[in-house]
């Protein structure tokens, strides 16, 4: 019989979660210590920043769950008032398939968890703590995870301001490796936004700030170059993305500055991200052909739409999971679970 015991971000604060984290190098020893417990035949540990879950198979799930609970509390010094969630048999699979599909993630539909489950399974498999039941369960979870992601919109679109900015930049320019980025203002938000673009290949970061020292500092941090605040209009023709987040109480980018630069760009579009409040960019700039201006509300709105769309997909994802559980040979009528002690 299958069983699962653990805790996640949904009900457990980070102060507890950080205690139960098992580094990758310690996973083999940890799963082997689990299979050394009475009634535990197979074991896999999934340990990420948002969850710590133990999957096991046992011929005596009622007593095995007690052993797992005790092992967790003893190993990680977890007080009695912290409750672990527990699932058995089909509910174990239902839970794992949902986790693999990103349905149980903090950012609904995120894909990183899929790789983390694969790594956790690979570590346990290499340590010799998986056999028939867990092998089948995890292989099925990978299949379900792929199926859900391919046949629903659960992972489509971007859910944060930074990722929306990257998605839009790629929608406009394609490969960002040829794109140059200019930061106006040296705020934390614009830095993170630029880092997101850099992570997708954007090069040639130019930083311009009223405090030139701060611009130099940020440019050094981002491997870019600093220019004085008076110089930025002359660089508009050279860059593809402008991220503006100055603390100015009035707009600093106007159509009169953008239009001449655009003529020199010979049809190459210009993407302007205005994350300042009050706004840095005159909204009339958006009316210029070839210029795409997105302020913080526009970016938030796109991220919100994606989050809502993902929420709407949950029912379809659950249906795919149920279909797999009904079809799985793991849960034939002859393999009924035993009740857990209450």
């Amino acid at each position, binding site marked *: 019989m299958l069983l699962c015991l653990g805790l996640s971000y949904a009900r457990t604060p980070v102060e507890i979660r950080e205690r139960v984290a098992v580094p990758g190098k310690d996973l083999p020893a940890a799963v082997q210590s689990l299979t050394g417990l009475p009634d535990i035949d197979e074991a896999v540990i999934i340990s990420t920043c948002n969850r710590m879950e133990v999957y096991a198979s046992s011929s005596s799930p009622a007593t095995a769950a007690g052993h797992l609970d005790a092992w967790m509390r003893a190993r990680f010094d977890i007080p009695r008032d912290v409750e672990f969630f527990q699932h058995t048999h089909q509910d174990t699979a239902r839970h794992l398939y949902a986790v693999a599909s990103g349905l149980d993630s903090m950012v609904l539909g995120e894909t990183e968890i899929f790789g983390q489950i694969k790594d956790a399974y690979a570590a346990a498999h290499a340590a010799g703590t998986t056999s028939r039941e867990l092998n089948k369960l995890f292989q099925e979870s990978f299949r379900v995870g792929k199926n859900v992601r*391919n*046949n629903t*919109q659960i992972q*489509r*679109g971007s859910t944060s301001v930074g990722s929306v900015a990257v*998605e*839009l930049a*790629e*929608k*406009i*320019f*394609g490969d960002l490796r040829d794109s140059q980025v200019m930061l106006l203002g040296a705020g934390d938000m614009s830095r993170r936004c630029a880092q997101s673009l850099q992570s997708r290949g954007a090069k040639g970061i130019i930083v311009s700030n009223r405090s030139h020292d701060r611009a130099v500092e940020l440019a050094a941090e981002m491997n870019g170059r600093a220019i004085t605040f008076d110089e930025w209009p002359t660089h508009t023709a050279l860059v593809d993305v402008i991220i503006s987040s100055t603390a100015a109480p009035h707009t600093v980018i106007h159509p009169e500055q953008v239009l001449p630069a655009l*003529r020199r760009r*010979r*049809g*190459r*579009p210009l993407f302007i991200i205005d994350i300042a409040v009050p706004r840095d960019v005159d909204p009339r700039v*958006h009316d210029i*052909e*070839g210029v*795409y201006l*997105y302020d913080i509300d*526009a970016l938030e*709105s*796109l991220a919100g739409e994606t989050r809502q*769309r993902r929420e709407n997909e949950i029912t379809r994802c659950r249906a795919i999971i149920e279909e797999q559980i009904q079809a799985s040979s793991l849960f034939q009528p002859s393999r009924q679970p035993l009740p857990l002690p209450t």
Partner: protein
Amino acid sequence: MSRELLVLILAALCYLGGFGYAFYALKNASYRPGRWTLLVLSIGLVLQTLFLRWRGQAIGGCPMTTPFELLSFISWSIVALYFIIGPAYRLSLLGVFTAPLALLFQASALLRPDALAAAVPKTSHSFWGELHAALALVSYGAFALASAAGIMFLLQDRQLKQHRISPGLRQLPPIHYLTRAIRGLLITGTSLLTIAILSAYRMEKQPHADKLTIVWIVWGLYACLIAYESWRGMSARRAAAAAAVGFLVPIVSLWFVSGK
């Protein structure tokens, strides 16, 4: 039904299926570039190539002697160009827009009364005449693809300006790639049409002056567009709109040029 008609009907069905699938998949945001669309376009292209081969053998030259053959040849050249241009500009989704264009021309050819007429063998051959016709039609194929890319650009530009990205259009190619593709296709088409027109002047029996004038008008339109864009600069949106709408001129010109 002749085997020639059969393969063309099958090709048209392939393009219809490819377009239908792509439309459905885009609507449901589940489109995967490079699978079904590529397969059906490939099958359609092979079928049309078979037709051109059989027809060419029967005629004893390039099968461009009737409006039915001309329209079929344009449909074939649109798909053939897609396979050449698409990968160069990383425009996998252009296939979605290629299928309906190819279908439009192929269906128009099949619906013509001369579709049922048997091939008439040529009594005389003119290398320059055949080069003129073939290059002119391939250039029209390039203008058709530029028009498709222009429509894709305008759809995306509109969404980006409205601060929206619909799940279906999310999969369209980046607008900067489309801008480059439109420019490349217009230059390719105009260059081919230039050679086609020059070839016409080498023919022993030159085409009717009115027909040549119409082709010159088409050439002039695209040459002016490219020249203006190169020397004065033009926003990508205007270039896309010009490529999308401008294709109406070659379509109308076909009406006159292909008339007997």
